[in-house]
Each structure stands twice: as C-alpha cells, then as structure tokens.
C-alpha cells in the first residue's frame, strides 16, 4: 500500500515538471497521423460498436425492423429469466473454480519448476504446450476423453471405480465441471509462466536474509515470496477474471451450454440469444451485464497502466 500511495503522490508533480521543462512543442503532422490512423481503425471496429451495444441493450430488436426503445425493460426481464439467473450463477462458479484453481495450481507449478536445473525446460514446455492450442481443439480432445466408451471411463473401470462411469458431458450434474477441466488444463501453463517471471524477479538476498534469521521454508514462502509476488498476483487476477468472462469457445464446442442450460455461461447465453433466437436487444443487455461484471477489473487494470505510463 505504501508503495502505491507514494507513487500516486509523486506522479502529478513529475508530469508538471517535465511539461514545464520542455514546454509545448509542435507535433509533426506525420506523428499525428501515426497516432490517429490506428485510433480511427479502433474507433470503427470497437468504440463505435461498443456505444451501439450499450444503446441496443435498451431496445427490442429482431435485426430486421427498426429497434424499438424499451428503456430498462430488458434488464427487468432478466430478473425473471431462469436461464439468465442460472447462467449468472454458473459464471460466478466458473470464476471461482476456474480462476481460483488456475491461480493456485499455476503458482504451485511455478514453485516446483522455478529452479534452473536439468530437464526443467522440458517440464515447463510440457505444461505450457496446451496454451498454444485453440480452445476448440482442446475441447475436442477432452470430448473424446469424456465419451461413454472413452479413456476416462476405461480408467475408472480399470481401477475398480466402474460405478463412477458416466456420460460426463450429457449429465446435468457434471457437465459444467467437465467443461472446466479442459479450460484449466490450458490455463495453468499460462499462469505458471506469469508466476515464473514473478519469482525470477525476487531478489535472492531476501531469502538469504530470511534464512539467516532462521525462517523456515514455509515462513519464507509466506513472508518473502507471497508479498513479493503482489504485483504479479494483481496481473494474474485481472487475466483470470477477463478470461473467465470471455470463456466461450470451450463451452460452445463441448456442450453449447446444455444439457438443459446446465453448463450455460453468460457468454454462451448471450451468443445464442443474439444469433440463434435473434433477440438482439436482449442479447445486448446480457452483454452489458458481462461488461459490468468485468468493469471493476478493467478499471483497476487501467489505473495500474496509467501509473505505469507515467
């Protein structure tokens, strides 16, 4: 906390100082064009559509006739929409399970593989390899594993747990969890890489000092490693929340949100509402809900970036 307030206090002063020292300088037209062209492209494809998206959330629209303004009607409808409430619940569960487990397991993998030693490059690459697969390919790999005659059921039968055999993706009670596992398989390597870089940045002298003071391995982890990883934790948290709310591909390829919406997330529900039921206004309103959920994280990410850009 101390670091944060110190830099926040310092930054305005710094900005003033540099501006006064260099004074206003004419910007070459080429440089202006350099900045404005990308901004224009992003405005056309992102900013303008985003504004439209917010407006459309206040309308009822089938995509053919003109959108009819209904105010907050779409949001009122959500309160009674059981599929929406279920999807919102699943999204929170997804955030907690997918996010929490990928952070904890990614950190554990990084701790295990942090030391440079023989073979460690191979282990890291193995854990990281799924990160480069598309979520669709990942999903299909796991779909084969989950089949009634697939490897998972074979394994269960061969260790005497045949009673647990299951049509994992077709059962309402297991579908959501069965979808989280492939997503985790792919995410853990990514989080591990972030933590590996964070661990590398910790000054070894801190560990030496702690050791001299007689700190046990566990104490060193709690009082040296974890506090030193604070900034990486913040990054991992933003990555996880943003990724969780975006999670679409893996669910869409495995279950399309089914059976009976049991693995429905807000992102899949939004897509099917908009592009299959053609309820574009209600779909936009669902997208706004996703935006609101992500807003806190986006804002804090931007605040950190703001300080960084100083």
């Amino acid at each position, binding site marked *: 906390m101390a670091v944060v307030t110190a830099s926040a206090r310092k930054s305005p002063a710094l900005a003033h100082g540099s501006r006064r020292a260099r004074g206003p300088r004419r*910007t070459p037209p*080429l440089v*202006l064009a350099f*900045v404005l*062209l*990308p901004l224009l*492209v*992003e405005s056309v494809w*992102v900013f303008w*559509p*985003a504004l*439209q*998206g*917010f407006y*459309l959330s206040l309308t009822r629209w089938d995509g053919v006739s003109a959108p009819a303004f209904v105010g907050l009607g779409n949001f009122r409808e959500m309160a009674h929409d059981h599929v929406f409430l279920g999807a919102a619940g699943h999204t929170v569960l997804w955030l907690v399970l997918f996010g929490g487990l990928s952070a904890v397991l990614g950190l554990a*993998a990084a701790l*295990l593989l942090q030391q440079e*030693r023989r*073979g460690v490059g*191979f282990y890291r690459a193995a*854990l990281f*390899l*799924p990160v480069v*697969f*598309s979520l*669709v390919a990942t999903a*299909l*790999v796991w779909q*084969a594993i989950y*089949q009634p*005659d*697939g*490897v*998972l059921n074979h394994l269960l039968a061969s260790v005497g747990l045949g009673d647990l055999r299951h049509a994992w993706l077709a059962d309402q009670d297991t579908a959501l969890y069965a979808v989280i596992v492939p997503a985790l398989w792919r995410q853990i*390597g*990514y989080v591990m*890489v*972030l933590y590996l*870089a964070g661990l590398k940045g910790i000054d070894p002298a801190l560990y030496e000092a702690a050791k001299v003071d007689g700190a046990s391995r566990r104490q060193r982890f709690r009082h040296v490693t974890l506090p030193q990883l604070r*900034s*990486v934790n913040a*990054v991992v948290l933003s*990555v996880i929340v943003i990724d969780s709310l*975006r999670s679409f*591909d893996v669910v869409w*390829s495995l279950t399309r949100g089914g059976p009976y919406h049991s693995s429905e997330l807000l992102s899949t529900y939004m*897509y099917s509402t*908009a*592009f299959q039921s053609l309820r*574009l206004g209600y*779909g*936009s309103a669902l*997208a706004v809900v*996703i*935006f609101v959920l*992500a807003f806190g994280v986006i804002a804090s990410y*931007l605040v950190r*970036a*703001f300080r960084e*850009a100083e």
Partner: protein
Amino acid sequence: MANVPHTTAPRRRRAATAGFHLSATALAVLWLLPIALVLVTSVRSFDDIAAHGLGSRPRSFTLDAFRQAWVDGGQQRALINSLLVTVPCVLVTLALAAMAAFGLSRYELPLRRSLLLLMLGGNLLPPQILLIPVSKLSELMGVYDTLPALIGVQIGFGVGFYVFVLHGFMRAIPAEIQQAAVVDGAGPWQIFWRIVLPLTRPALAALSALSFTWIFNDLLWAITVLRSDTKMPITAALIGLQGQYVSMWNVIAAGSVVAAAPTVAVFLRFQRHFVAGLNLGAVK
C-alpha cells in the same frame, strides 16, 4: 561423526532431486497424455474404434482420417482461410500499433496518456458487447461473410493491447538517441524507421508469436462475421467437422491435430519469444 554431514547432505540432495523429477515427470505425463491420446486416435481406423471403443488399446494404423478431414471435411480450405486472415492481421496490427506507440511514447502529444489508456481499454472490453454491432456494421459496409470483415475486426480489437505493450518498450529508449538524430537532421519517419523500430525488434518478435496464436485460435469473431462454411477459418471448421463426423473420433482427432499443428510449430520455433511475449503483456 565428522563425516556424517558429508554423506547425508549429498544423499539428501539426491533424494530431493529424485523427488523433484518424479513429481515433475508425473505432472508432465498428466499434461501430455491428452495430446498423446489424440495423436493415437487420429491414426486409428474407424472400424477399430467402433469395435473396441475409444479408450481401448489401438489395433490399427492408417492416415485415412487425415485424408478425410483434409479433403472431405474441408480442412484444407479452412487452413488456407486461417492463414489468409492471420498473416495480414499480425502484420497490419503490429505496424499500426508500432506507429501509435511511437507517436505516443516519443512525442509530447496532448492527451497522450488518455489516448493510450483509451486504446488499451478498447481491448479489455468483453467482446460480447461488440458482437451484435460488429456483425451489423459489417453488413452495412458490405463485407459481411467475407474475410476482410474478420481481418478488420481482429485488427481493430487487437491493436490497443499491442500499442500499450510497445509503448512501454519504446518509452525505455533513451531520449539522447532521438535528440542526436534530430540534430543530424532526421525527420520523424527516419527516427521511427531507422532508430526506434530496430530497437523494438525483440518486443515485435515476441508479440508476433503471441498474436499469431491468438488470431489463429479465435472462434468468436469468425462465427460472428462469417456465415458460409467455405469461408470459415480452421477453428470454426473444426466445430463443423464435429457436427459432420459425429462420433467418427479418428477424423475429429485428425482435424484437431491439423488445427493445432501451425501454432505448435510457431511455439516450438519461437518458444523464447512466445514466453517473453506473455510476460511483456502482463508483468510490465
């Protein structure tokens, strides 16, 4: 007693090393097993899988499934579509991002920080809020269901993130280099092209590897602005394959291998850039 520490310390270290390799190997096997499984399944015959089950020991070897996925399943065309989208996207996005980052980091533009954050913020938006307007916008511009629509939206949505990362990188270039170039009479273009870009090469390499995989692996934008099967990139085609060859697991597995091969190749070839790219984006 004196030599007891001598013998136990190496022994303990050896035990620790063995323990490390044991647990790390177990982890690696767990991670690689699904990949091995899909590779094995892709070279089995359909009859073998149908008769003995997906989880059984393989009893056949054939590359038939690859031919089916590649030719009948339309993966050849899909892979070409993917490359037609991905390669221009990577090049144009990074070019645009480098330009904007150069302007924002090396010149005293008004509102430069706000512009930078605005561009980054656009990339952090959940894509869902953009899907409907973007599909309508591409209809309006007459590019709906064409690859340029997909290229356009990928560039527009991605550029903000790369601007942010490259800005951080270019900002670190000492001002003296630029001042010396100005004294020598270099204009902004020369400073950009001859000085700043060459110094930014490591970051550009890292971001290229990263953005190649991201764009290549995308599904959501593709199914938002494209409709015809013949125009779909490989990820969407893979979902089509899944519907077309229901429970023909060898074909689906072969399709997955084809879809994953290019990014795995990029990863293996540019592994260091790749990991560096992930960290550039995050830990900065």
